[in-house]
């Protein structure tokens, strides 16, 4: 399991004391027997603290941003292949209204397991992109 632990040297905003998280796929947690684009990001020291994260590119294929030299240096990134990106999901009362935080992606160096939540300042991304936007359109609203 320890190979799935990632380390945020400075914590994440709102949870600055939480430095280590473990990433587990829904498949692993719920024994789905199928691939899932959803993962839990669970605090190692606080069992009650977990987030749901996704690979944003599966839901938002046009999503893109540049890693600054500062981030590349802080995370010790050597090559693009070792970078993993996740977005945190916020669940609403209705699960179909779930949103993804594309303004603050989580970037991980999969080689050394260092992670950081970035702020894509100066982009049009927000903290609340509907995950199931198309379905809502098909349903014609409620």
């Amino acid at each position: 399991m320890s190979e799935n632990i990632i380390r945020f040297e400075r914590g994440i905003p709102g949870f600055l004391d939480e430095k280590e998280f473990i990433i587990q796929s829904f498949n692993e947690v719920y024994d789905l027997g199928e691939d899932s684009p959803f993962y839990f990001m669970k605090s190692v020291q606080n069992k009650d603290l977990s987030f749901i994260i996704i690979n944003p590119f599966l839901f938002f294929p046009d999503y893109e941003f540049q890693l600054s030299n500062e981030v590349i240096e802080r995370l010790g990134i050597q090559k693009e292949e070792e970078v993993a990106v996740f977005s945190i999901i916020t669940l609403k009362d209705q699960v179909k209204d779930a949103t993804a935080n594309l303004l603050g992606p989580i970037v991980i160096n999969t080689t050394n397991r260092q992670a950081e939540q970035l702020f894509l300042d100066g982009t049009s991304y927000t903290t609340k992109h509907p995950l199931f936007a198309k379905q809502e359109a098909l349903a014609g609203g409620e």
Partner: protein
Amino acid sequence: MLVLKRKLNESIMIGDDIEIKIVSIESDGVRIGIEAPRELAIYRKEIYLEIQQENQGAIAKDTMQAKQLMDVLKQYKGDERIGDK
């Protein structure tokens, strides 16, 4: 809070290696240049607060609800935007 008066192109040093410079002064705002070591992340406060607030609201409390994400996704399948992986 320490308050200092600065004019255009004047700077403030914080410690030995952080410099904050007034780059331009306009009617609707001030442009500030910052030089700091790379280990320091720099951001506008409102962005930081927005991310902080979103993070706090994103704690996964209800695992049953989380699991429903899979059901919603299944209904949503057929949409080529979502891959099989």
